[in-house]
């Protein structure tokens, strides 16, 4: 199976150590354009467009990315529960048609933070949300593929004569990505996801998780693709890469302390099981498998993916290829220096990953 490399775009410069998520205009159009083009030129397949209940709208951001790149695809993060699934299906199919076909995918996140759900008016609890996600994904897929109007009556949604005149360009349609590690999440993802997203956990835990999820999917007669998210920190020498990691940790620590109990901090916390797994790993040790580093994870507390592989481009590529050998076909890589890292990775890391993936696929 071919390797897929995902990056991530934001509408302004912001990471744990660069820019700000909160200050200044939320949309810096010129920055987003440059950022998207850099991914296109560096050889990324797709970019994730993130989601929160205070952020600019991902569909609009995705449209801008597609209009300003030639080949790059988008993976639009979406939380079920706020937009009808029939309408989301038409959004995706319309975007797919207007961008030439095959460039649009959707990532289902179910909301790890009750407070962020309530900002947009959702008061359902965690497990109920996952049941809704299952129904949402089922109706979404049906709207994208059904040749005739259909009715649906479920626990969360009821439709009469649901139909979309617009369909995806290619039969493969719109890939459905999914994230979530709680028991409730696994039940849903195993049945409905095309690609299951994993945070950057150590190799052994990832292998266990893949086996577990494959077994869950097999009960539904399905096979899953897996994606791993990591935050590479590369430099010309291994020592220089670790020194860079230390600098990143120091700046993260400074910012976390300066933010203190700032009310804005709450916008980015997560109560998800996926984040809790990362915190547990970070509490046990700081480095796994020689170069998987949890230094930032420990500092920021539960949030998005924050573990990263540290080393030379070849060392990091080799480390990621070990995940490829155990079944990871998609890598989501984003840096702490978002734009500079993308440009940098296009020179050695991405070519090394692609060349290595070809070797993995050669028969022994």
């Amino acid at each position, binding site marked *: 199976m071919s390797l897929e490399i995902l990056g991530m775009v934001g509408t302004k410069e912001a990471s744990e150590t660069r820019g700000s998520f909160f200050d200044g205009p939320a*949309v810096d159009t010129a920055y987003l354009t440059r950022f998207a083009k850099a991914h296109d030129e560096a050889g990324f397949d797709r970019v994730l467009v993130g989601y929160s209940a205070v952020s600019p709208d991902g569909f609009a951001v995705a449209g801008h990315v597609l209009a300003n790149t030639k080949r790059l695809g988008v993976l639009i993060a979406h939380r079920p529960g706020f937009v009808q699934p029939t309408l989301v299906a038409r959004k995706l199919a319309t975007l797919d048609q207007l961008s030439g076909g095959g460039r649009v995918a959707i990532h289902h996140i179910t909301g790890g933070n009750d407070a962020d759900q309530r*900002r947009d008016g959702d008061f359902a609890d965690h497990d109920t949300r996952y049941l809704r996600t299952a129904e949402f994904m089922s109706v979404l897929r049906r709207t994208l593929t059904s040749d005739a109007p259909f009715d649906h009556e479920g626990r969360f949604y009821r439709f009469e004569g649901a139909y979309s005149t617009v369909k995806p360009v290619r039969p493969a349609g719109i890939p459905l990505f999914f994230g979530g590690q709680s028991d409730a999440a696994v039940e849903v993802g195993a049945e409905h996801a095309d690609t299951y997203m994993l945070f950057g956990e150590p190799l052994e835990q990832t292998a266990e998780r893949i086996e577990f999820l494959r077994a869950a999917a097999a009960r539904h007669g399905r096979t899953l693709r897996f994606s791993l998210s990591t935050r590479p920190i590369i430099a010309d020498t291994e020592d220089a890469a670790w020194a860079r990691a230390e600098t990143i940790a120091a700046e993260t620590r400074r910012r976390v302390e300066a933010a203190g109990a700032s009310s804005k901090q709450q916008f980015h916390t997560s109560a998800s099981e996926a984040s809790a797994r990362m915190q547990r790993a970070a509490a046990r040790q700081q480095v796994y498998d020689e170069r998987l580093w949890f230094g930032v994870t420990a500092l920021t507390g539960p949030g998005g993916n924050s573990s990263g592989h540290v080393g030379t481009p070849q060392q990091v590529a080799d480390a990621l290829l070990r995940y490829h050998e155990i079944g990871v076909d998609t890598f989501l890589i984003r840096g702490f220096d978002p734009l500079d890292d993308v440009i940098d990775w296009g020179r050695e890391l991405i070519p090394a990953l692609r060349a290595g993936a070809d070797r993995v696929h050669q028969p022994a």
Partner: protein
Amino acid sequence: MSIEFIGIASTSAGSEAQGYSGPAVDPAYLALLVRTHEDAGFDRVLVAHSSAMPDGFTVADQILSRTTTLKVLLAHRPGFVAPTIAARKYATIDAFHPGRIALHVITGGDDADQARDGDISDKVTRYRRTDEFLDILRREWESETPFDYAGEFYQVRGGFSSVRPPLGRIPVYFGGASAEAVRVGGKHADVYAFWGEPLAGIIERIGQVRAAAAPYGRDTRFSVSLRPIPADTEQAAWDRAADILELTREKIGEVKRTFGITGEAQVGSQRLLRYAAEGDVHDKRLWTAIAKATGAAGNSTALVGSYEQVAESLVDYVNVGVSTLLIRGFDPVSDARDYGTLIRLVREQTAEREPISV
């Protein structure tokens, strides 16, 4: 003030007279259609909404990326997207294309089309929901701090958007002819949109909306939607109108299948049909035969005459208080090009004056 001209965008070719065939999304056609509008002098294009059609947000974004000054009026039906998210969607598009997006609120006149996207509430309930939706939308756009809202339809806790309309606000257009519509639209609309009724009907409706808007201190503006059929001579225009009617009658089954919407439950449609029953031509040249043939499910009354005559009739609407004219034809691309003449004539005749209020 200058008169605003709005045309209509579509992702595929077709009209009542041409039928609708081919793929639902033809990117090259959309680009041609909107660039034609921009070149002809239109200010804006409407992107419509129905429950089986391509998504309007995506289409709007595409239009704004493919034109340089043309604005978009993006129709949205409350009830299918959480209001805080809808607010961020509009604000994000506005951030990429400052001042070029406006919201057209439609509340849904057809129960079956609502049910396709999962809404089974009745019309009176829908308008109450629209009212709450617009309350929340405005707070999400404007609130400097997280806000709470507890209503009949929506509960929000800590609502907040990091992205705001860069020019301060996004204009809200509003449509609907029932008493509930007027109550809610009077409260929220910057521009209240009417279908093309005779002048007396428009005067009546402007009065209703102004009365509903007064308690809120709103200075509402008004839009009328018409389907001009101009030609070099009056006779040529009426010949063309006859051809359009004949083609429309041939295609009527197909059109109803395509949209699956009837005007049976819509007060606006019933008003047009009542005028149509009284006679085919009202005022100087307002022609209602297409409305009658199609059941008036949409904006379907025409102005038929020479360019000068049609322009004069458009100015008649300006004279009773209208400042936005939504005009679209039966042959979308070539009519949009052709309407450049009407736009020029109306602008010449209205350049130096304020609209006269009724």
